[in-house]
């Protein structure tokens, strides 16, 4: 047995947790889980050097450590700040954090196109989630949104630079999974973009993983483009014996058709095992795979549109006011032919027509 590591205590949003030295505030908060875990748009635990850039995970350090309990003067990026013994952190209990985060979301959105209705990422987009949780309903930005020249990244990966939030994850992915990076960050400031400079396709065996790490719809799967909405698909864990990668994937079914293949993701939306391009793009038949069973999907996400965790149903006030439950005062069917209960509109072969209601039984 190796010597037991001495754990250190950190308190986040009034919850104390013991973690190993060298743990970041963000990862300590993830151990607590729930709302205490700050949102992260650029940090990715599997990518070395990632984090610190998007600033959505800023937290307030109310006390640096037991040894030096002074607060930190500025909000800090929780993904890149390590905990100290006795540190006291405020995330959602800090007004400063909530205010700053609202600002960050606004900054991320001012140049982001409102093309969710046609974006393949919609439903599993981290920026959508972030905006629902922390954003404001309107925009204060009154200028044309930023556009970029289009770049073609080859047959597999579609780049929509206007949607990019510059998280750098795809660059780290290419650096760390492939031996030859061909795309990178060009230009600077608000003109900075992901590109290859001279048109080159990304075709390394593992480059497809950039699609999974992209928090928004900037890098999407060309083989899945416009094919379906993710909330109509049923994710299923599956595997195959792949000579290149772990072969552990998620298949996204509609009916018995596989619409896309992705890596499996953990509860923080991070890839568990990188997968190769062949598994991702070429194996689109259920027969290529051994099905394990349905995937548990994090429901705290836009993927379960209209079914938010923690959503409050409005209180019914009629019983309170009337002192009893309301009774049905009028049966609509007694006055209208249109809504006859025996006519099932969904069974009609085409659009409904007046003939359908002309006393003819639903055939």
């Amino acid at each position, binding site marked *: 047995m190796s010597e037991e590591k001495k754990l250190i205590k950190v308190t986040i949003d009034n919850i104390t947790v013991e973690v190993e030295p060298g743990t970041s505030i963000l990862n300590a908060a993830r151990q607590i889980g729930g709302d205490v875990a700050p949102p992260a748009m650029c940090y990715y635990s599997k990518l070395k050097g990632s984090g*610190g*850039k998007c600033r*959505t995970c800023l937290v307030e350090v109310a006390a640096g450590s037991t040894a030096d309990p002074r607060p930190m003067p500025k909000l800090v990026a929780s993904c890149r700040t390590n905990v100290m013994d006795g540190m006291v952190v405020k995330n959602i209990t800090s007004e400063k954090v909530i205010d700053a985060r609202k600002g*960050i979301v606004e*900054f991320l959105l001012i140049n982001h196109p409102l093309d969710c209705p046609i974006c393949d990422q919609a439903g599993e987009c981290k920026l959508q989630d972030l905006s629902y949780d922390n954003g404001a309903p309107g925009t204060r930005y009154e200028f044309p949104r930023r556009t970029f020249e289009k770049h073609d990244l080859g047959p597999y990966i579609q780049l929509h630079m206007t949607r990019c939030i*510059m998280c750098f994850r795809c660059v780290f992915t290419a650096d760390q999974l492939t031996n030859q990076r061909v795309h990178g960050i060009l230009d600077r400031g608000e003109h900075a973009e992901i590109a290859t400079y001279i048109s080159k396709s990304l075709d390394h065996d593992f480059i497809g993983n950039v699609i999974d790490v992209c928090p928004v719809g900037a890098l999407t799967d060309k083989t899945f483009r416009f094919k379906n909405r993710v909330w109509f698909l049923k994710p299923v864990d599956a595997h195959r014996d792949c000579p290149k990668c772990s072969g552990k994937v998620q298949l996204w079914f509609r009916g018995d058709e596989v619409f896309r293949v992705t890596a499996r993701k953990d509860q923080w939306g991070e890839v568990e095992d990188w997968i190769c391009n062949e598994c991702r793009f070429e194996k689109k038949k259920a027969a290529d795979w051994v099905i394990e069973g349905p995937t548990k999907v994090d429901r705290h996400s836009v993927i379960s549109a209209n079914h938010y965790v923690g959503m409050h149903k409005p209180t019914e006030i009629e019983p309170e006011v009337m002192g009893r439950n309301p009774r049905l005062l009028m049966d609509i069917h007694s006055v209208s032919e249109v809504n006859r209960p025996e006519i099932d509109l969904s069974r009609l072969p085409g659009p409904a027509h007046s003939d359908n209601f002309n006393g003819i039984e639903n055939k």
Partner: protein
Amino acid sequence: MGRKLLLEKAHVEGIRYYDTYRREGGYRSVEKALNTMSPEQVVDEVKKSGLRGRGGAGFPTGMKWSFIAKPEGIPRHLVCNADESEPGTFKDRYLMEFIPHLLIEGLIVSSYALGSASTYIYIRGEYAWVADILEQAIAEAKQNGWLGKNIQGSGFDCEIYVHRGAGAYICGEETALIESLEGKRGNPRIKPPFPAVKGAWDRPTVVNNVESLAAVVPIINMGGEEYVKIGMGKSTGTKLISACGNINKPGVYEIDMTISVEEFIYSDEYCGGIPNGKRLKACIPGGSSVPILPANLLLKTAKGDTRMMNYESLSDGGFATGTMMGSGGFIVLDEDQCVVRHTMTLARFYQHESCGQCSPCREGTGWMHRILRNIETGKGKSSDIDLLWDIQRKIEGNTICPLGDAAAWPVAAAIRHFRDEFQWHVDHPEESQTRNYGLAHYADPLQVPVTA
């Protein structure tokens, strides 16, 4: 006449060249340090001098030096920050152009103190001819045995290399500078680790401004204790101020931090007053990033004291009524200048120079510039002023590096002190295109609260 330590000899004929510089007493500090002092003693002397970093932040140089990690077998580096790019600041260029050997001398002593055998001068790419001057000075110093192996028989080896940047203000931030020195994009690093532990090529590194390193020469020559006697309080020694804007004698001045702002602007020894008999409207005393002050708050503090040209007095009153010494880029605006337009050019500057790495700065700097451009060109709305305030507030403190703060502060200060000028632009969109708001009440005597 104030005492000069750095520029005293700057106008001696031929001081740019080694022979003259040496004849005028140059390189004495290297002899003294290498032959009679240990590196620790040099660090102590700089600590004693109270020298504060001259690049803008004003952090004590000796303290910074004492943080450098000394892991066994890993080389350490000193890097001289000559990426002078802050609007209003051109003092380092002056020093390097006229008296380059002073910097080289300071670099040798400082390299000895820090144990840097390879020292780099990171100079902004546009100062191409200055880089040539420095290379020549380095070659001369080497020929005369002040660089290379076993300098002056002390056993200390040191080389100095000039590294030209290529146009990026952000590379004045020390970790961006290190990235750039490594041949990368100038994206500031996320700290910690600090450069003193993991800097250039992951080695312990100290980055100091040109003027700070040049100041090491007089500190070693006269001793830290003597150096403290020049100046006031925690503003020790002398400071180079580069004065520009609407003044009769723009240029670089060495001050000993005991003179008043008023004297600096109006005396013939320094700026020589404002041209064409115009009146002073506003001033940014420490480079574009520091808060702009209207004339009345510039010359007197909110308490009614005379404002002096030193770190403490300039920041008296905090950001509410004070400003900062910054890098010493002194920008003067006369009564016919438009604060809105000036602020807009600064916002455009920060938009242009943002590296684009973190969201608040990448998105916020451009947004501020666009709104300011609208107000300046008569397309602004009243609500834009509040919006600007809110945007700068959300950038400040939330970015990876201080460029975010540097972009936010000028906008905040302009609104804080000149809000009615912004409002006038909004209320008089057409008139504001044909004339300026003028001096208004910005030079009126302030009501000083009487305290019993």
